[in-house]
């Protein structure tokens, strides 16, 4: 009895440093933010309690609605196009090619680069006098020339294109690990039974790599929802609000508008949105995972 109590104390002792760090750097700021979300704090003067006014105002805030629309658009593209693209790339990279190692490295390289560096580099490519328009001109497509980041219709797709370029290789590496864990004998027996390549992918590969699909979808959703750096560097959310995401707008509310109370309220709602979406995703994809 005594030894089990001292063992319990020992466990608490070991957990204490992590708990302390979690308390100081996560729990305390979170609770502080929750309190500030009910105030009109401007970062300088003492905050006044305003009840649910910030939360009520958020539901009538056109800018928030536009940013939510943009963010969900990015999320949909990243999950519905980015994820299958990563899987396709992984299937190709899993083929017995001689240059497989080189190709894997090349496709993974963008994932190693800072998003800031990527944004600036793509900015030079996509600007009106940039590389893309120069190439279009070279091949006689002058009519297709655009200020890709300065046009309402093309700015957000351009941002998404950069995200796909940067993220597809990373997702493919995760899928590749999954593909290599699929037992070869299952594939071979299906092949002997006359299953086509597509049938084998649909009935054997995908069910067996479902945990990896869960991870990649989760990372895609989380990454899309908290998207900030690429639009911040490339377009500052513009033109107009064409590329303003929720993360970028909350940043602006706090550090540009100096409305810290309002921004923390927006942050709280944003957190709930992320939690709901990821919970739904995890419950759907995990249900489809199979045990080997």
């Amino acid at each position: 009895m005594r030894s089990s109590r001292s063992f319990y104390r020992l466990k608490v002792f070991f957990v204490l440093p992590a708990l302390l760090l979690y308390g100081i750097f996560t729990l305390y700021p979170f609770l502080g933010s929750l309190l500030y979300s009910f105030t009109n704090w401007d970062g300088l003067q003492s905050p006044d309690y305003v009840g649910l006014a910030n939360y009520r105002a958020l539901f009538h805030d056109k800018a928030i609605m536009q940013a939510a629309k943009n963010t969900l658009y990015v999320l949909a593209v990243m999950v519905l196009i980015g994820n299958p693209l990563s899987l396709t790339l992984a299937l190709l990279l899993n083929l017995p090619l001689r240059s497989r190692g080189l190709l894997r490295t090349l496709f993974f390289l963008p994932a190693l680069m800072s998003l800031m560096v990527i944004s600036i580099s793509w900015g030079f490519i996509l600007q009106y006098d940039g590389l893309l328009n120069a190439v279009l001109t070279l091949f006689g497509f002058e009519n297709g020339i655009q200020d890709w980041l300065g046009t309402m219709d093309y700015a957000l797709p351009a941002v998404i294109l950069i995200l796909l370029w940067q993220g597809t290789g990373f997702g493919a590496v995760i899928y590749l690990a999954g593909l290599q864990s699929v037992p070869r004998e299952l594939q071979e027996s299906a092949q002997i039974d006359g299953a086509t390549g597509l049938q084998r992918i649909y009935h054997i590969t995908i069910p067996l790599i479902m945990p990896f699909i869960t991870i990649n979808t989760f990372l895609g959703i989380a990454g899309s929802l908290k998207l900030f750096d690429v639009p911040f560097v490339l377009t500052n959310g513009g033109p107009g609000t064409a590329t303003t995401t929720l993360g970028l707008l909350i940043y602006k509310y706090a550090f540009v508008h100096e409305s810290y109370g309002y921004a923390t309220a927006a942050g709280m709602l944003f957190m709930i949105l992320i939690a709901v979406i990821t919970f739904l995703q995890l419950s759907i994809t995990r249900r489809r995972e199979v045990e080997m």
Partner: protein
Amino acid sequence: MSLNEKLKAQKITPIVEGFKDIWTLQAAYIPIAISTYFGTNPNFERDVYDGKASVNGPEVTGALTQFAELADKGYFNKNSLSIGNDQALQDFIDGKAAMHMMGSWTPGVIDGKTQNFPLGFFIIPAKDGNTVMSAGTDKGLSINAATEHPEEAIALVQLMLEPDMLELYGKDNALSAFNDVNPVFANPAMSEIQAALQAHPGHRNPGDYFPPSVQDALNTALTKILAGGGVGDSAAELAKLYEKDKSKVNF
């Protein structure tokens, strides 16, 4: 507008700007807004604060519409949203455009990059023909209330504010808001700005008495206009933000 049209007809870009830097949006908007905001009502911002005028009134709407006219008619460079101010200024120096809307530091920057550049200045009138010069203070003088030598401090400030001293300080350096102070500038464009300051009514930069949220939303509206999105209900949105954040305005 007719000048812009003539330039465009000759395949010359009328105005070059680098709006990617965001702050440069105000450099192009202020010269338009100052005459429209304060041309008919010198107390416009105070009146907005007191509820006698609105951000959604003819002043802001008029300035946005005038800015939109420049954008919609293609008078700005086509790459204005994707280049920064350094590139825009270089394009101006290289003769790729006829005009550049920017602050009074520009002649000095151009002098640092090239020699004998033929630079001039003119004020942009509002639609009704009113002209107001915008200005921002670069220095402030104050005396510590607890100083042991108040008389000497006052004497020093008085000496520093003598026209001769201000002319000495301003020489090739700073514009003066006083009509009896005429600093000498090597760059003729600076002399033209100084003359315009003395010939036209002046006002602090428009927006100095708007909350930061309104200024940011104004920049957003300007980029939307530049991208072909039109003025729309931008002024109404600015008015809503003004009411929400009015407590941040300090008169």
